[in-house]
């Protein structure tokens, strides 16, 4: 009897607690003193903890840039390692504030998941890696091959589409995480491993003998990558989007980690607006006037972030290609701050 009574009272109390309201994401992050950032944690160049457990990479630096803009401290980020399978659920449920995890922007993901893509920070495309020993020079020669792939990715769907379109047969072997699918390829379970081209360069370094493998020339899809936020908080959406634009604009005006203190004294009105010595554009976003100074001091500009993690300053040595600034023949273009 007593058990039943105390149970009913307990449930009644729990019912009263269910009514919860959430403030804006920016206020939540400020109150917590920490940004919760979802990333892969398995992909060299994009996101991988180093020997000391400090997260490094292109996707990681985007979260650090956001933390720098809010707290003036790029280390105030808690990283959550997510597989491609779990990433959207983690963002939907509020476990993370932003998902910066080499995620392809597609129409259905933008409309059906309750999430918004903020901007394209890396223009990618899908490619194949094979062992040199099988003597294949083109993806079109892969008829009947077994291909390892990471599950729940656009890659998995593109792969099927590509083989179908070219009237070829394929044996798809899907794994939940990058490491498992890559290990299966390395042990000979598959003839080829497929993912975004940028990742192929980075995963090649994880193979037992990187020099025995070659990336095929075909790029079979458009993979625009960028960070995502939840629906329903436009201010937060704006902040993540403009952190990307700030990085690109900083590169365009040659504002670097090294010279940012000099550039603050610049007379150029565009630089003055960007660095907050004129106008209150940062405050309009809900940040401070010097938000871009904080970002650049924290992580550098877009070009620096790219070079350090993916480009010539990294083991990957990926060329800027279409990710160069629009002024240099690439696609990276940011709206002006004014």
């Amino acid at each position: 009897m007593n058990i039943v009574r105390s149970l009913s009272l307990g449930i009644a109390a729990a019912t009263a607690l269910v009514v919860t309201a959430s403030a804006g994401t920016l206020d939540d992050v400020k109150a917590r003193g920490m940004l919760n950032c979802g990333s892969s944690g398995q992909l060299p160049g994009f996101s991988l903890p180093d020997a000391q457990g400090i997260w490094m990479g292109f996707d990681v630096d985007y979260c650090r840039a956001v933390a720098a803009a809010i707290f003036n401290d790029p280390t105030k980020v808690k990283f959550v390692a997510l597989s491609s399978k779990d990433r959207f659920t983690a963002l939907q449920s509020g476990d993370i504030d932003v998902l910066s995890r080499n995620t392809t922007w597609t129409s259905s993901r933008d409309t059906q998941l309750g999430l918004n893509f903020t901007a394209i920070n890396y223009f990618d495309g899908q490619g194949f890696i094979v062992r040199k020993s099988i003597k294949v020079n083109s993806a079109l020669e892969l008829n009947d091959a077994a291909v390892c792939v990471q599950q729940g990715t656009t890659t998995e769907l593109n792969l099927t589409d590509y083989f179908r379109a070219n009237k070829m047969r394929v044996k798809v072997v899907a794994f939940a995480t990058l490491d498992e699918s890559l290990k299966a390829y390395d042990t000979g379970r598959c003839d080829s491993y497929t993912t975004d081209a940028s990742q192929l360069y980075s995963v090649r370094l994880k193979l037992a003998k990187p020099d025995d493998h070659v990336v095929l020339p075909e790029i079979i899809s458009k993979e625009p990558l960028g960070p995502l936020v939840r629906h329903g908080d436009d201010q937060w959406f704006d902040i993540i989007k403009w952190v990307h634009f700030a990085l690109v604009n900083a590169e365009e005006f040659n504002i670097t980690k090294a010279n940012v203190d000099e550039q603050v004294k610049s007379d150029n009105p565009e630089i003055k607006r960007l660095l907050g010595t004129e106008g209150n554009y940062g405050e309009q976003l809900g940040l401070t006037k010097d938000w871009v100074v904080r970002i650049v001091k924290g992580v550098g500009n877009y070009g620096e972030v790219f070079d350090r993690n993916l480009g010539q300053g990294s083991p990957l040595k990926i060329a800027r290609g279409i990710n160069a600034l629009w002024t240099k023949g690439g696609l990276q273009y940011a709206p002006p701050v004014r």
Partner: protein
Amino acid sequence: MAAGTDRPRDRFYNNSKVRSIVWQAVLIICVVGVAWLLARTTAENLARARIASGFGFWNVTAGFDISQTLIEYSASASTFGRAFWVGLLNTLLVAVIGIVGATVLGFLIGIARLSNNWLVARLSTAYVELVRNLPLLLQLLFWYNAVLKTLPDIRDSLHLPLGGFLNNRGLFLPAPVGEGVGVLVWAMLAGIAGAIAVLMMWRRRPHQVRLALAPVALLLPPVAAWFLYGEPTAVEYPELGRFNIRGGIEVLPEFVALTTGLIVYTSAFVAEVVRAGLTAVPKGQVEAAASLGLRRGAALRLIVVPQAMRVIIPPLTNQYLNLTKNSSLAVAIGYPDLVQVFAGTVLNITGQAVEIVIITMGVYLVISLMTSMAMNLYDARLAMTERR
């Protein structure tokens, strides 16, 4: 003087029966209320975040491939619903083979642990202690890598008799093809069911009769089907292509690793259950059998095991349920079971986590309840024969 209505203990709200009913009603209202509140809050939040909901995705074309399909499936024509069935059948295949294998191996080891032979008893003890004290996921990864690493590359495939191949892409065997194959498979299943029925149902007949009739029941349907359909099958041999082997029956290394891992792991627990059951039979029963002149094997088969079964069945059911649920660890080694295909890829493409997770949980619940039901029926039968 009986002015009872004035006394407090006679008022209806002081009646302990009435109070009990009221409290229970309050509890039920609270539970239903909380469930309703949760459902409504979820639906509202999904709608507010504009996350797609409902079951419309079921009939949408899937567009992804699955490496093992027991029923017809193609990326271009099949729906997410079809992918669900493919995944479910793959799960059931592993569960059934795993349960049979774990039972056989577990019984052997459980009996071996009680053996008078010192070496056999110690070896089986070592097996049990080693296997049940290591995490299952670790064991699955071990088996998967053991399978992949020890088998030769596809270009150095082992050639098996009758035109089969073995390599690190799997085991490839000749397959029967043709229109009659489906009929033949059903006929074989009918034969197996018939043989089990003969062995189980006709308990009162002498067991020589049952043993003689069982093979007849087993073989009659397939043989009849063979002749009725006029030898319907041809044989398709696997052929070595440029990259892969085409045709024939393909047994995936992921499947082998998963079933092996589950069988080995669960058999250790089954062995302990069996040992407990056998030890629970009073020693006097064995001695009585011996004094009647029964050999040790016959005493075990006729006297000890039937009595031990009553102790064994309930915990054995637990192990069966565990095995079925553990099969969802398939996701770690790339075997396309229900969780990998449906709660993995389908969830990721559609993004409808709530619906898909609820369906997946419901399926496991149904499988588990059905397993329990079957085992309870078997348990009840054992109890009844005891009373005769």
